[in-house]
C-alpha cells in the first residue's frame, strides 16, 4: 500500500466538518482495507483456489460531520467497503480506526457496544424491514438490544419521537411495513438507524430503489438530520448528481480501489483520473443545447474480474490514455494539491 496516504489524509480540511466539531477531528480512518472472499472448490474437502478481491487496499479518512460520497460502477466494491467498515464482513487486512479504536481488532461485546456509534441505511426498503413486525417493534429493537430506556413505556416514547424525527406520523407504530410506500419505509429504516444515537452512518445506496420524486425527500431528510444531530455519512451511490448534491468530498472507486478522492466541486470541475473523467462525461445535462454538444468518453470492454485484476493500474485495460508504464507499475494514490488525491501515472513528473 502507499505509505504517503494516511499522513496526508489527515490534513484534508473538511468544508462541513467545522460546523459540528473542531477541524481535523477525525472520526474514521480507514487504512489499507482489504476484503477478499475465498473461492473454494470441492464439496467435502473444500480448498481455496483463489479470492475475489472485492476491496483491495482502500485508504481514506472522514471528518466528524462530513459526508463522503463513494461512487463507482456496480461490483466495484462500494458496498463491500461500507460493510467491511461496519465489520459486517470481517476485513482480510487493514485498519478501521473509528473514534480512536481499531474495529478490526475488536470482538464480541466490545464490538457490540461500538455498534451503537455506527449504523447503516440499506438500499432496498422492502427487504430491510422484517415483514412480520410492527413499525414500533422494528424501530424499538435496537433499543432493546442495547438496553436503552428503562421501561417499555420509555422505549415507546422514544420510538414515537424517532418517527417524528423522520417526519412520519407517530401513530404508525402499530402498522406493518407492507402498509407503507417505499419512501416511508426508507424513513422507517432511517429511524431505526437513528434509534441508538450513532455518530456515523453508512448509507448504502439509500435512494437507488426509490422513485425519483421520493429521492429528494430522503436526501433532504438526511441533510436535515445531519445538521440537527451532527451525523457523519459515508454515502454510497452511483447517481452522480445526487452524490454531488449531498457530499462534501467524493471518492471514486474502480475494481476494489479508490482511484480519485477530492472536494466535491474540485472533482466535478477538474477530474484527474481518466476513469472519473469518463464517469462524469456520462452525466446528462438538463439543457438540450449543451446536452447535444456533450462529449462522452465511451469506455471499451468490461470491468476485469476482481478475482484476477490486471497488472499495474487496474484501469489500464480500458483507459483511453493508457501508457506503457500503466501496464507495469501500480500508480501511487497521492495528493496532487489541495487534498485532491488520484492514483494515475499521467500526472507524475516526467510524463506527458
Amino acid at each position: 500500500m502507499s505509505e504517503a496516504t494516511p499522513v496526508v489524509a489527515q490534513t484534508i480540511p473538511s468544508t462541513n466538518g467545522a460546523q459540528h466539531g473542531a477541524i481535523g477531528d477525525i472520526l474514521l480512518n480507514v487504512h489499507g482495507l482489504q476484503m477478499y472472499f475465498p473461492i473454494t472448490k470441492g464439496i467435502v474437502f473444500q480448498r481455496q483456489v483463489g479470492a475475489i478481491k472485492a476491496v483491495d487496499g482502500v485508504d481514506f479518512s472522514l471528518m466528524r460531520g462530513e459526508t463522503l460520497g463513494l461512487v463507482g460502477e456496480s461490483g466495484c466494491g462500494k458496498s463491500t467497503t461500507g460493510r467491511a467498515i461496519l465489520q459486517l464482513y470481517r476485513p482480510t487486512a487493514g485498519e478501521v480506526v473509528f473514534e480512536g479504536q481499531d474495529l478490526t481488532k475488536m470482538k464480541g461485546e466490545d464490538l457490540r457496544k461500538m455498534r451503537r456509534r455506527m449504523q447503516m441505511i440499506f438500499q432496498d426498503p422492502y427487504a430491510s424491514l422484517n415483514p412480520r413486525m410492527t413499525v414500533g417493534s422494528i424501530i424499538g429493537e435496537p433499543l432493546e438490544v442495547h438496553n436503552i430506556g428503562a421501561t417499555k413505556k420509555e422505549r415507546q416514547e422514544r420510538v414515537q419521537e424517532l418517527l417524528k424525527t423522520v417526519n412520519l406520523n407517530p401513530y404508525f407504530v402499530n402498522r406493518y411495513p407492507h402498509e407503507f410506500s417505499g419512501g416511508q419505509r426508507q424513513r422507517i429504516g432511517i429511524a431505526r438507524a437513528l434509534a441508538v444515537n450513532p455518530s456515523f452512518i453508512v448509507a448504502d445506496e439509500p435512494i437507488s430503489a426509490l422513485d425519483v420524486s421520493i429521492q429528494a425527500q430522503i436526501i433532504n431528510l438526511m441533510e436535515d438530520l445531519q445538521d440537527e444531530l451532527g451525523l457523519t455519512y459515508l454515502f454510497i451511490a452511483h447517481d452522480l448528481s445526487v452524490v454531488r448534491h449531498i457530499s462534501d468530498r467524493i471518492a471514486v472507486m474502480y475494481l476494489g480501489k479508490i482511484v480519485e478522492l477530492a472536494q466535491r466541486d474540485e472533482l466535478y470541475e477538474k477530474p484527474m483520473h481518466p476513469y472519473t473523467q469518463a464517469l462524469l462525461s456520462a452525466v446528462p445535462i438538463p439543457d438540450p443545447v449543451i446536452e447535444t454538444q456533450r462529449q462522452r468518453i465511451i469506455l471499451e470492454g468490461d470491468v476485469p474480474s476482481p478475482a484476477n485484476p490486471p497488472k499495474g493500474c487496474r484501469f489500464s485495460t480500458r483507459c483511453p490514455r493508457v501508457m506503457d508504464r500503466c501496464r507495469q507499475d501500480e500508480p501511487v494514490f497521492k495528493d496532487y494539491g489541495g487534498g485532491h488525491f488520484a492514483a494515475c501515472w499521467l500526472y507524475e513528473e516526467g510524463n506527458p
Partner: protein
Amino acid sequence: MTASATTTPLVIKKIEREGKEESQWRIVGRRFARHRLAMISLVIIIIIFALTLLAPVISPFSRDAVDIAVTARPGPPGTLSSAGEVHLLGVDHLGRDLLTRVLYGGRVSLTIAFIVVIFQELVGVSLGAYSGFYGGWPDGIISRIVEFLLSIPTLPILLITSSILIKTDAQLPVPAFVTNGLARFFDSTPQDANKVLVLCLILVVLGWTGAARLMRGMALTLRGQDFVESLRAMGASNGRIIFRHIIPNGIAPILVNASLGLAAIVIFESALSYLGVGVQEPTPSWGNMLASAQSYMFQAPWLPLVPGIPLVLVTVAFNFVGDGLRDALDPRLKR
C-alpha cells in the same frame, strides 16, 4: 358545488382510523375463516376431539369390561347388555362396548398424533433453523442425516424399530407424572401408557425431517436478507436473530406441514397398530381396533366402520385444514 360539499365528510372519516391496525395473524385467521371446507373440517375435528374427551359421560360402560351376558359376539348396534343398557355401536368379539372403545381409541390416536407432531416440528424447526442459519459443517451433518432418514422406506423401518422396542417392553425414562397422567387419560396402566410414548418417540425420530428441510430452506433465504444484516449492524445476538426473526418469518410452511403431519401420524399409528407393532391391546387405538375387526369383517360388516369412519374423517379434515392454512398464509393472496 353541491357535489363537492357532500363528499368531504368521507375523507375526514378515513383519517380517524389511525393507530388501530390488524395484526398479520388476525388477517390470516380471517382468510382461513373464509375457506369453507377448512372451517367445516376444523369443526369436525373439534367435535371428534370433544367426544373422545367426554367418553365417560357419553358411554356408561368401562373401557375393557367384557359383557358375558351378550351372546352374539361381535354383536350388532343396539345389543342390550345384561343390565339392560344399550350398546349403541354393538360389542366386539370379546363383548366389550365398541362406542366406549372407539372413544378411548380416539383419545389414544389423537394424543399420539399431537405429541408426535409437536415434538417433530420442534426438533425439525430448531435443527433446520440452526443448520440453515449457520451453514458450514453443522449444516452438512444435519443435512446428511435428513437425507439418510428420507432415503430409507418409512414403513419397514418403523416396523422393525417398533417391533424391537415394543416386544422387548422398552420403557421410556420420563417423569412418573407424565406416564401416570397419560395412563389416567387413556384409562390404562402406566406401563401401557409408556409403551405409547415409546411409539411416539419412534415416530418423532423418523418424522422430524420434513420440518427440518422446510425450516432450513427458509433460514437460508432469510439470512441473506437486508433486515438480518440490519440486525447484525445493530449488534443483535444470533439467538435473537434466529428466534425473533428467522423462525417467525419461516413459520407459515411449518404450520401447514404440521397440520398435514397430524393426518399422516394418525394414519401411521393406525398402520403400525393394525400390523400389531403399534399400540398394544388392551389399550385401544383406531388402528388395533381395525386389526381385530378384520377377522369378523364378513359376519359383522359394521365392525371395521366403527374405528374406520372417524379415522377417515379426522385424516381428511386435517388435510383440509392444512390446505386452508396454506391458502390463508400465502402472502401473495391479498386480503
